[in-house]
């Protein structure tokens, strides 16, 4: 599959009086043609910086980027017509109507006026198109932003948090829209925090943390690679569940008690569990790996899982590790 978007070793450093902050630290990403590609990362991990850099809004300090095989930002003007994008929250001049806003963009891009009507219909703003944007809700502004990105019928659509502010119906419509666009041959790069949506919509994902890629591949592969660390442990009836849990905790396991079983979260080697328990004459009746969802994989890879009693700061990530390995 041809790569529509390639990023290799991308670096961006911000210097201020407080010191140097590496927003991107050798980040890599590849998006193939026709994919719906999820781009995930915690707040401040470098997602938006990546998108802004790719779209020529920020100057990188190093690395290589290409869109449709053309080096950017040098050749960006030549490929910009094929890229529709919204970056971060939708921003429009509030005193213009949605139709005016899109019509001005269409003029700037030399597009036909019919496209404006078509995209307004597509995102569900047809009947509100003559109202001022400042009267719009966040969800309606989001729809307008998507409309502006779709206006030039791009081959690559880059959407940063497109479901932000949308109601449940809107989120479902957005999901359907993404699927339809992908089926029509459009490549979609989707940055989102709604991991359930990503899991439903995307074929491939790239996860970024602290400016670096920490995982990439198909959603199924990423889940498979990170689904063995948690196991469900059920003991024979009548055995002291709490005592067994304390025993494992004493050996460094992260144990979460449930009603009739417990979960060991960092079980890199599940055999350790049976061995430690068997030594104390406690026998396991069920030991099953827990199939991870994208959220838990994301939290594990980015080290952003909430820890009881701690307030995690935006740039704070903990190194993922395993017990018993």
């Amino acid at each position, binding site marked *: 599959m041809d790569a529509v978007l390639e990023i290799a070793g991308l670096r961006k450093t911000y210097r201020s009086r407080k010191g140097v902050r590496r927003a991107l630290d050798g980040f890599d990403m590849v998006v193939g043609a026709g994919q719906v590609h999820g781009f995930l990362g915690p707040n401040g991990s470098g997602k938006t910086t990546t998108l*802004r850099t790719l*779209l*020529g*809004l*920020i*100057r990188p300090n190093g690395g290589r980027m290409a869109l449709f095989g053309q080096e950017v*930002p040098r050749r*960006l*003007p030549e490929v*910009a017509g094929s*890229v529709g*994008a919204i*970056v971060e929250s*939708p*921003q*429009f*001049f*509030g*005193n*213009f109507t949605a139709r*005016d806003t899109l019509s*001005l*963009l269409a*003029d*700037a*891009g*030399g597009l036909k006026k019919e496209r404006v009507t078509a995209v307004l219909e597509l995102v569900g703003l047809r009947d509100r198109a003559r109202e001022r944007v400042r009267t719009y809700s966040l969800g309606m502004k989001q729809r307008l932003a998507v409309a*502006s990105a779709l206006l*030039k019928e791009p081959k690559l659509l880059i959407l940063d948090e497109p479901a932000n502010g949308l109601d449940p119906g809107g989120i479902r419509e957005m999901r359907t829209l993404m699927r339809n666009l992908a089926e029509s041959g459009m490549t979609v790069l989707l940055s989102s925090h709604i991991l359930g949506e990503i899991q439903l919509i995307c074929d491939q994902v790239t996860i970024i943390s602290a400016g670096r890629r920490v995982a990439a591949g198909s959603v199924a592969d990423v889940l498979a690679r990170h689904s063995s660390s948690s196991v469900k442990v059920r003991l024979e009836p009548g055995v002291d569940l709490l005592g067994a849990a304390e025993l494992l905790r004493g050996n460094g396991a992260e144990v979460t008690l449930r009603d009739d079983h417990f979960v060991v979260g960092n079980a890199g080697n599940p055999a350790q569990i049976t061995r430690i328990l068997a030594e104390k004459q406690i026998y396991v009746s069920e030991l099953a790996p827990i199939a991870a969802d994208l959220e838990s994989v994301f939290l594990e890879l980015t080290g952003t899982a909430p820890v009881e009693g701690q307030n995690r700061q935006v740039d704070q990530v903990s190194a993922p590790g395993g017990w018993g390995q």
Partner: protein
Amino acid sequence: MSLYKAETRRLVKRRFTKLFVLCGLLVLAAVAAGVFLSNQRVGPETVARAKAEAQRNYQESVQETNRIVQECQAAQGTADAGNFPPNCEISAPQQSDFDPEWYMPATFDFRDKFPEMVTTFAAVLALVAYIVGASFVGAEWSSGGMMNLLLWRPRRLQVLGTKLLVLLTSAAALTAVLGVLWTVGFYLIAQARGSTESMTGGAWQSIGLMEVRGLVLVLLAGALGFGLASLGRHTAMALGVAIGVIVVLQFGLLTVLSLANVKFPELYLAPFWIFAWLNKEYVAQDYTSCDVSPLGGCQPETLTITWQLAGGAMAALFLLVVGGAMWTMRRRDIT
């Protein structure tokens, strides 16, 4: 061309543009109406009446002088003599002290008065151009519109340059059209409430050139507002600089320069440069100095700001601000 067309539509569609152009038009209309109402045409009857009034005042003044002289002479040798000049030397008024012009109503002589109206016209439109120029790009920066546009047209200098070009061509077109209306309007006012008789080909040429310099002033003001708002990425940046320049640099600087007895403090004040640009020159005088004149007496030292010098300063200011805006546009991260 499509970007130019889109930006022209954007400029014209903005409520801020419409509002401030309308305000400018209302101010200009008020000035024209004020001039029309406060002047009147002077005919032979009015001149005769003014001459008669001047003559009557002269005669009354002569009679009053004679009466005082008689009182003075009567008071000689008495205690009241001290209330009068010695020897009753009271000079009689001259006929020339009573110019009939002083007794005539205000009249609008096109040749004499219209240059002041050109200055007013240029000042009002320059203010409008400055504010509209600042808002045109400042609102784009602060609303995120500039970022949207750059996603469509990732050529930064072309985008900013086109916006500036749209602003300047629109301002030039508006100024040119209004300039013609302004000139025709005051010509008609002069015909109805004054005189156009002294207008010669040379006078028309001089007024035309002054209007062209007024147009340049309007364009410079628009470009400065645009450049400053783009540098600060907000309309308020340009408005803040304008207020800062007026309050701090002009009033504050004038006070400091006066206290320091600096020669020609006008050199540091923008209005005098604008005056020099529009009126071809401004002659600053240092009344504390004395150049001995061969004809006798003291002449204050002078310094002339020519329109060429003022034009050079304006060009330098344009390059500094607009060049700075272009340079930062090329270099900055757009976040």
